């Protein structure tokens, strides 16, 4: 693969910073639009990165989002240092949430995050260690590299 045709970006996400949450998603979205990815692919990236960012903001101290895009595929890896997920199977169920009342009052923690990311991705891998953190890898197939 020619290096020039590979986008490789890294962003830091700060836990508890609800005010800034969503910035990474917005930035990635505008880059992908400008490059000319299919609007629906851009939308899927926007949704899944936003949800992933929110998870870091809500449940971790800090996290890093690594973004790689080639004309064919987009991969997003989010690693955080935080409480981890006790029961991944439960966390994948729609409506299941461990959010505090305070978070819910702010309109977050509806238990839609992980299922929503999964729905918008072509591959979804998650590993977590209690007390250490969570690693999420999302792959989205972008197409054959030409504009549809």
């Amino acid at each position: 693969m020619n290096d020039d045709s590979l986008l490789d970006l890294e962003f830091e996400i700060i836990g508890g910073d609800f005010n800034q949450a969503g910035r990474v998603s917005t930035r990635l979205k505008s880059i992908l639009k400008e490059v000319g990815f299919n609007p629906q692919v851009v939308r899927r990236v926007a949704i899944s990165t936003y949800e992933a960012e929110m998870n870091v903001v809500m449940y971790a101290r800090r996290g890093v989002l690594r973004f790689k895009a080639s004309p064919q595929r987009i991969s997003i890896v989010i690693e955080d240092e935080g409480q981890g997920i006790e029961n991944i199977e439960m966390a994948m169920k729609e409506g299941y949430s461990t959010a505090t009342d305070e978070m819910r009052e702010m309109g977050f923690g509806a238990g839609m995050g992980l299922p929503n990311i999964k729905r918008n991705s072509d591959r979804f891998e998650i590993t977590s260690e209690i007390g250490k953190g969570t690693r999420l890898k999302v792959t989205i197939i972008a197409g054959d590299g030409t504009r549809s």
Partner: protein
Amino acid sequence: MLEMEPEAENIRYYHTLKILEEKCQGRMRCMRKCPTQAIRVRRGKAHILEELCIDCGECINACPEGAIVPLTDPVEQTSKFKCRVAIPSPVLYSQFSVDIHPPEIFAGLKKLGFDYVGDASSACEAMSMALRIYLEEHTGPWPVISSFCPAVIRFIQVEYPGLTEHIIPLEVPRELAAKEIKLELSRKLNLPLEEIGAIYLTSCPAKAVSIRQPAEKEKSWFNGSISIADIYNPLLSAIMSLREGEFEDDLNQPSAIGMGWKVLGGTCSFLESGNCVAVSGIVELTRILDDIEKSKLREVKYVEASFCPEGCIGGPLAVENAYVARVKTIRLEDRYGKRPRLQEERVRQLYHEGHYFLERRIQPRPIKPLHPDIAKSIALMKEKEKIYNLLPRVDCGLCGCPTCLTFAEDVVKGLLDISDCLYNSIRRRSSP
């Protein structure tokens, strides 16, 4: 129904904004004001990038020289139609002193040579009811976005192409009004439709464009449009010269519910629901569309979106101050009473017959990427970042681009050279 294919490339977009070169002094006010960064100043003159322009009209009022003019139709145009009907946007009702009511405005328009005048506010009322039915029956995706503001529609098509499926596929009131009025006149006068010319009187350059090049159908029901600012003076003198008996107060009574459409929040107040929001202005629109795109707005079902602050009454071609026009609209609503004029059952029946729907869904119209081949486009994107990092990033605009980022883009596109950055060349010269 929901094809996501972008519109064919190399389409020429029609625009109603024209820059008069002889008047343009290259002062860059328009360039700085343009919300889609569609203006560049080259060799001292402003130019519009057609692909990016959404016809919002921000530049018209930004220009101190009055060098940017809307290409609506001239008031005096001699008509090729046997029957000419004026259909004013209800915005017109709020442009005069509070003693001048819609019946006098209609009579004044007839004095100016229109054979008929049609009221668009009852179509607005019908569409309010149709909108309520749509929200009852729609199953997702949420939230849905109103379709009546053509600048918003074009903004979404260009900047948020992934959101076109959120736009409500309902007809806009002005088109419904033109259709119903023309069909009725054709029956009444026994004239073929081609001989009836419907002219829209509007505060909005984007509506003038949507009449010439609709986003959602082959052809508009209107045959032209006139700017309210252009017709204001002749119309005012015509109204002043009316004598008693020249207008009847009970005819053509407009709908108060319909008039509310032209004021920000008008459609929301009719819906009386806690999950509708009304948004206007480019900054707030961008915020809310960003949120919809990442599916953040979970509690909101309906977004009323207008480009102009305060809604259509704040349009660039209106005459009255938008805030005053808002108060006048409220007074008119009180005068005509906010009870529905149409029977909801009848609207419901027509709704299910498809009467209120757009001919086709709004399609995306994404900005042309840096290169059609995504691999090359990514490479150019990186090149652009490199160039951008060499720039002062103060967005001084002296190069004729609105921002350093657009300058970098024009360099990778081969339109400018990095040495065209005046700020950098001055900095180089002054540093030892």
